[in-house]
């Protein structure tokens, strides 16, 4: 399994091994915290992987909104202090909380958890998990991949037909 993310024009590839390690870290964090959901995503709002049971939560939509919220918080940080250094953001709800933290500046960790989980415990375990993630992300190789194996003329042709059907043309 490989995840490709063309962030700002660059090709990024997560190897099978790296992906498994990330999945394992998310699983351990989510399990130990008894969290509802733990998402590892890029700052553009694409979820790379998650652990937990989303139930009625749309992971894609939640990640897009969370990434936006996190970026907005950092813009507030820049306005008040001249630098973007809000590495942690907590939203407290009546039943569930959302905790977000920066991972290597290009990524974000998003946790959805119940009120019974102490926030200090969340921060402690997440800090440890981020440390592990950084260790693997540092070893990522930046490289371009040939997209042609995924999108070719046949794919485009079939996609056109699907679009016509979906749009009622």
């Amino acid at each position, binding site marked *: 399994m490989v995840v*490709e993310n063309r962030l700002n024009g660059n090709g990024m590839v997560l190897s099978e091994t790296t*992906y498994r390690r990330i999945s394992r870290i998310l699983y351990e964090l989510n399990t130990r915290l008894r969290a509802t959901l733990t998402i590892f995503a*890029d700052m*553009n709002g694409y979820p790379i992987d998650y652990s937990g049971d989303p139930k009625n939560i749309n992971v894609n939509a939640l990640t*897009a909104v969370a990434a936006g919220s996190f970026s*907005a918080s950092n813009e507030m940080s820049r306005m008040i202090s001249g630098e973007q250094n809000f590495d942690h953001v907590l939203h407290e709800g009546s039943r569930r909380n959302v905790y977000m933290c920066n991972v290597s500046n290009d990524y974000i960790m998003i946790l959805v958890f119940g009120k019974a989980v102490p926030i200090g415990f969340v921060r402690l375990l997440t800090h440890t998990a981020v440390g592990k993630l950084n260790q693997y992300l540092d070893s990522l190789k930046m490289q371009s991949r040939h997209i042609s194996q995924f999108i070719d003329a046949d794919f485009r042709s*079939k*996609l056109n037909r699907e679009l016509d059907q*979906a749009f009622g043309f």
Partner: protein
Amino acid sequence: MFIDWKNREIVFKIVYYGPGLGGKTTNLEYIHSKLNPSLCSELISFKTKEDRTLYFDFMQMGLPAIDGKKPRFHLYTIPGQVQYGYGRKLVISGADAIVFVADSQKARMDENLASLADLQEKLSIYKKSLQKVPWIMQYNKRDLPHCATIPSLQSKLNFMNVPYFEAVAMNGQGVFETLKKVIQITLSQK
């Protein structure tokens, strides 16, 4: 663009850009209202009390798997109002393609031009430009009086001669045609 090889999903980010009150949100609202609900997520909007976009609108559109590969499209709008420049900078990050929704009314030409300049500036933050990113033009509000002619809009706004569509987003005219085209040019450049 994001490819999840495990789940065989390919995800594209398409951004609707343009001046405030040009009809970007209306495009998404129409798409959301007409698509089969099984193909799209809910439409998420951050709006002010005056019903203006504060941050962005977002929806996901998915199509059935093609040869085992599932195309997904994340559709965003930007806040058009001048004071929300930061929101535009955030949303344009990582965009695979852009729909520039221009207001066809003659009186809005300056706002259209300012928004295009703003788009170029925001892209430059990410070392991109209108020459490098796939984009198309939508001339919206063609039903209103005092619209500029298409040749006039073309000469003033479409300096790169990208594909364009006439639209009345309120009733859906040109909306899906625009979306189909932007998806096509997104994929053609991959």
